């Protein structure tokens, strides 16, 4: 696909609901200005852009499919029948929270979602008792389904959010979730994205944290032909806690990517990040993580660790853990490793009578469990992640 075709594709996008039309217009405009991503852009240098272009050829799902977002609150309920503790945001409120731009240069996926999407769900959590919310998003074969969610968690409120995104054959998701944490609020966010053959995921998780809020994110992804998951977290006034853990398992000829961006806009913030990936067969995994600590963010403590297992000689891993620091009174560290399984560990297990294959799978399981053990799933009969993870070695 060439630039002109891309412009044409943008022009042909279906119109959104009237109250979102202005934001859609802006998004289309910016998308035209940005153009197709290219290797010249630092953030897209390593991405397989041909695969991105192929997504543009997938027909966009009509609105009915987008509404297949399912909310589980204890038991499945429908959007119009929410308990008192969760409120649907009005159009005005959505416009207030729905941000067209975001810190950092790399905005393409965000704009992309806003340009094509014509549906949005906005929720506000008002309960100080912990609310459990499950969001399952699936699509049909051969469709590009755009989804967008805004969640506002009010002062002192707590939310356990489980998102499961499932991809069908030859489909694509363009997904955007925006979470606003007000003061003293807590969100435990589990994000499980499982694709099928030749399915694609373009996902953005945007989080804005106020003082004394706690945001903990665990992501798991596998099975996508192309997955690009961007996590952008800003501590608006610092003094908040952020935890990010993620696991990606890439197989066959998949390309999975995690791009994270964490910015501290005030002092005394903390970040604890652990990013893991396993690469098998001819797959490719990309981790690109940036931590930004400007002058105002004194006494920030941030640590980021990228641990990768490269298990095949045809696989490929790129990891770029970046730090950008101006404040002087900070403690920041990052680390990255790419390796095979440890031979002395395998040997130790073998010496206890475990055969090599078992030893390998034990160690890989151990590698995964550090992340997956923390994923808390509520009962969804259609999909058993535990079983799924147990089967994937």
């Amino acid at each position, binding site marked *: 696909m060439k630039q002109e075709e891309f412009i044409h594709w943008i022009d042909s996008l279906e119109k959104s609901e009237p109250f979102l039309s202005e934001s859609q217009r802006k998004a289309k405009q910016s998308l035209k200005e940005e153009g197709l991503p290219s290797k010249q852009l*630092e953030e897209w240098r390593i991405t397989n852009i041909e695969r991105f272009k192929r997504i543009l050829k997938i027909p966009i799902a009509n609105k009915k499919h987008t509404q297949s977002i399912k909310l589980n609150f204890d038991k499945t309920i429908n959007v119009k029948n929410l308990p008192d503790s969760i409120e649907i945001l009005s159009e005005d409120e959505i416009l207030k929270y729905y941000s067209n731009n975001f810190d950092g240069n790399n905005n393409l996926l965000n704009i992309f979602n806003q340009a094509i999407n014509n549906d949005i769900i906005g929720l506000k959590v008002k309960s100080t008792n912990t609310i459990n919310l499950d969001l399952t998003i699936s699509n049909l074969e051969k469709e590009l389904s755009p989804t967008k969610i805004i969640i506002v968690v009010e002062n002192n409120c707590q939310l356990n959010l489980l998102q499961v995104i499932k991809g069908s054959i030859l489909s694509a998701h363009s997904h955007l979730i925006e979470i606003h944490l007000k003061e003293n609020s807590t969100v435990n966010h589990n994000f499980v994205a499982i694709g099928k053959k030749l399915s694609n995921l373009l996902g953005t998780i945007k989080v804005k944290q106020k003082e004394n809020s706690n945001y903990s994110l665990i992501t798991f992804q596998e099975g996508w032909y192309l997955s690009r998951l961007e996590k952008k977290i800003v501590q608006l006034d610092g003094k908040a806690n952020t935890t990010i853990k993620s696991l990606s398992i890439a197989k066959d000829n998949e390309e999975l990517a995690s791009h994270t961006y964490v910015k501290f806009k005030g002092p005394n913030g903390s970040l604890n990040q652990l990013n893991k990936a396993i690469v098998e067969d001819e797959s490719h995994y990309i981790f690109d993580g940036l931590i930004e600590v400007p*002058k105002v963010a*004194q006494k920030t403590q941030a640590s980021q660790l990228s641990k*990768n297992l*490269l*298990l*095949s*000689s*045809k*696989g*490929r*891993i*790129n*990891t*770029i*853990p*970046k*730090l*950008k*620091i*101006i*404040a*002087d*009174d*900070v*403690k*920041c*560290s*990052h*680390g*990255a*490793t*790419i*390796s*095979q399984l440890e031979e002395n560990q395998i040997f130790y297990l073998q010496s206890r009578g475990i055969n090599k294959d078992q030893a390998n799978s034990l160690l890989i399981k151990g590698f995964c469990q550090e992340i997956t053990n923390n994923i808390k799933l509520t009962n969804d009969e259609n999909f058993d992640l535990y079983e799924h993870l147990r089967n994937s070695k």
Partner: protein
Amino acid sequence: MTTKETISEVLEKSYPYGFLTDIETEKIPKGINESIVRLISQKKNEPEFLLDFRLKALRQWQKMKEPEWANLNYPHIDYQDIIYYSAPKDIEKKSSLEEVDAEILETFNKLGIPLNEQKRLSNVAVDAVFDSVSIATTFKEKLGKEGVIFCSISEAVQKYPDLVKRYLGKVVPINDNFFAALNSAVFSDGSFVFIPKNTQCPMELSSYFRINSGDTGQFERTLIVAEESSSVSYLEGCTAPMFDTNTLHAAVVELVALDDASIKYSTVQNWYAGDKDGKGGIYNFVTKRGRCKGNRSKISWSQVETGSSITWKYPSCLLEGEDSIGEFYSVALTNNKQIADTGTKMIHLGKNTKSTIISKGISAGHSKNSYRGLVQISPKAIGAKNYSQCDSLLIGDQAEANTYPYIQSKQKDASIEHEASTSKISEDQLFYLQSRGIGNEEAISMMVSGFCRDVFNHLPMEFASEADSLLGLKLEGSVG
């Protein structure tokens, strides 16, 4: 007094090498075009192959675009406003040092590099480069006995054209990057080192670069070849006078190590960095690359970067030979409005290749200090290993420290480990040292040295103390 006040006081420090030597020079007209390149080649009486090399590079360069880096702004460089060749007048290389212009000898004396062999440390040979021209090379005879060639590259072109032809541009191709292409077209002088088979170079070799003219670009070219089972340690130092304008320094350094050979290349870079408002100073855009061509060969880069207004520099290793080793040890100190963007590339191509990266960045004032590095493991590099450690120390709350490590592996039987940290000098540490009777300045400089210890340990003996005191000088106060 608070730590902040102390540190800022310590940092107010002038550049001691900023004097200008008054000497008549021969310069060619400003600008760059084919006739200028021909003129340079003609002045140096070069063989045909070299003129062709230069012209090819010029044509490549004209097609290339100056790189634009994210987050890095500097005033536009007008390449037609630079003089590409400047030499002390009448400088036919003197056979004995006594004939060298007294002013120039004095300049090097003032810089602490006496060229008189009796005064020199007996185990270091020096090639002194003044503006574009090599002035003197010491200890040539003694080296000659071992078969070691150490001379200016201009001299090598005349005396050993075959060697130069065989290796020049083979590590850094003409079209490698914008500044390398420019250098290939107009390079003036630099050092040439050739260590024959089975020879351990008997002394440290050293080049000292001095920019004197304000409007002259410095484009030196260094080529070091170590044949099978040979070894050499090479040091490089540089200073420049203070000018309000920016001077461009775009050098190219190429190293080749054959089977079992080892090259250690150390730099103490102290170009003028501009004043505290960022006015003037050297733009240091240098391409340095070593090729571990032979099995079990080793190339080790050590650098102490304290000067220049802007530095872009990524001394790299192409690890081709099996079991070859690449190392990079770096200290970069930036102050005031300096910008340093430095790091390394370790390209693992051969089996069981190993690389180590230790980088220490110290940012003070309003400066910006970035580590940018690439570790790449190709599919053939079975058993390759890399370890990287990048630490930043921030002094004051206006400085910026960035770390951009790019890590790529395509080989499952390889291991890569990267660690990085950012910290500051704490009030507790400062008080502790003070309470043992150690003054502020000394305490800070002690801690900075301590922070850099891992790197200093890899500098040649003669250099380690120089580097240490250079940092001390930059931060005032010396370390005992």
